[in-house]
């Protein structure tokens, strides 16, 4: 990007500028910077939106649901079925966590599509913290449930004895890579999508300043298409994160299956 272009104001900002974290209310506790930032603001907005949408949808608790209530129930059943299919009945006690996780990511991704908003799921610190919580939680659940036998997740069943020395390190590595891949997938998807949108948006300014304004609509049409695509990605990535969390949980609850 031409950061020194004087003709277009917004295009002057780099495509990564949208990920900048700005402190809105500086807070320092014990030498740590815990400022209330734009990221924190949008997390709060997401939680408030979820609370309004979900508690509001259920306010009548009608036997025959209206559209709003049906949407809430549909989301509930979607996540409940996902947990049931991947973990089974013993996963029911982790439903509130999985449901919250799914909604937190979904609304973070979707609210990030609002112009001038901030996408907190496009930050590795956030996605990795969530992935780490899932990873540590799942490992603790597995250890509490199965004790030392939990280590048998590193020994794949049905493998010849000769291959065990080779397979166990691979399994151990793939196990510990889980939080990394889980967090990178979400972070990279959100960041790449938003960067791409910004780049195409910047093209419009560049084309106009270069006197090629007639080509600008092409870029705008691309932005429209990409926006729809990004909405799809936003939902899919929230689903993928939740499904993988379910699968890891299933591994820990039920060794070898």
């Amino acid at each position, binding site marked *: 990007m031409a950061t020194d272009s004087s003709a277009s104001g917004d295009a002057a900002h780099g495509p990564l500028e949208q*990920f900048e974290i700005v402190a809105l209310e500086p807070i320092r506790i014990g030498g740590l910077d815990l400022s209330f930032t734009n990221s924190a603001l949008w997390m709060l907005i997401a939680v408030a939106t979820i609370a309004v949408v979900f508690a509001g949808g259920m306010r009548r608790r009608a*036997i025959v649901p209206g559209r709003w209530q049906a949407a809430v*129930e549909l989301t509930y059943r979607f996540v409940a079925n996902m947990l049931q299919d991947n973990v089974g009945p013993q996963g029911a006690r982790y439903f509130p966590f999985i449901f919250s996780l799914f909604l937190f990511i979904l609304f973070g991704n979707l609210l990030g599509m609002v112009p001038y908003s901030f996408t907190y799921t496009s930050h590795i610190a956030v996605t990795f913290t969530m992935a780490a919580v899932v990873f540590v939680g799942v490992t603790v659940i597995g250890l509490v449930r199965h004790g030392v036998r939990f280590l048998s997740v590193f020994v794949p069943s049905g493998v010849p004895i000769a291959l065990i020395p080779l397979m166990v390190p691979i399994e151990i590595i793939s196990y510990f890579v889980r939080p990394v891949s889980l967090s990178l997938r979400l972070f990279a998807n959100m960041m790449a999508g938003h960067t791409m949108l910004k780049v195409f948006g910047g093209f419009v300014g560049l084309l106009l300043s270069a006197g090629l304004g007639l080509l600008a609509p092409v870029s705008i049409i691309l932005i429209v298409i990409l926006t729809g695509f990004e909405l799809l990605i936003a939902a899919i990535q929230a689903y993928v994160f939740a499904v993988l969390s379910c699968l890891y949980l299933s591994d820990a609850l039920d060794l070898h299956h």
Partner: protein
Amino acid sequence: MPQLRVETFPSQIFWLVVTFSLLYVVISRIVLPQVRTTLRARETRIGADREQADELRKEAEAAHLRGSEALAAARADSERLLREAHDQATVAFRTETQRLQEALENERVEAEARIETSRAEALRDAEAAATELVRSLTSALTTVQIDDAALSRVVAQAARAKTS
């Protein structure tokens, strides 16, 4: 890349923990209980409605069964009544016919007897008249003394020969 600015991590993680905990409480304490009670109420309602529908259906089937039984009984009754009436009429017809036939037969027999009597009387009168005529003619034309009994026998013989 702003994502790699480590000095922002504590704030991000701190607010993530705070807001996510808040969301978890809202979801697990408020939203999920509401959804669950609603879904349970609906299931209960549907179950109850289905049970009621089952009961009503059974009742309807029983009523239908009773109705068809009553109909069959009524039909059987009507058939029986019809048959009885028919039988009674047949019996009455037969007895009446027999009675009339007997009466007719009696009358015929009586009439025949009367005819026979009349015929015998007429024959007897004719024989007597013939006897008298023969005697009158004989006594008028001849002097022969006629035995009455022999004359009667002869006339009767002639009459018999004539009639048979």
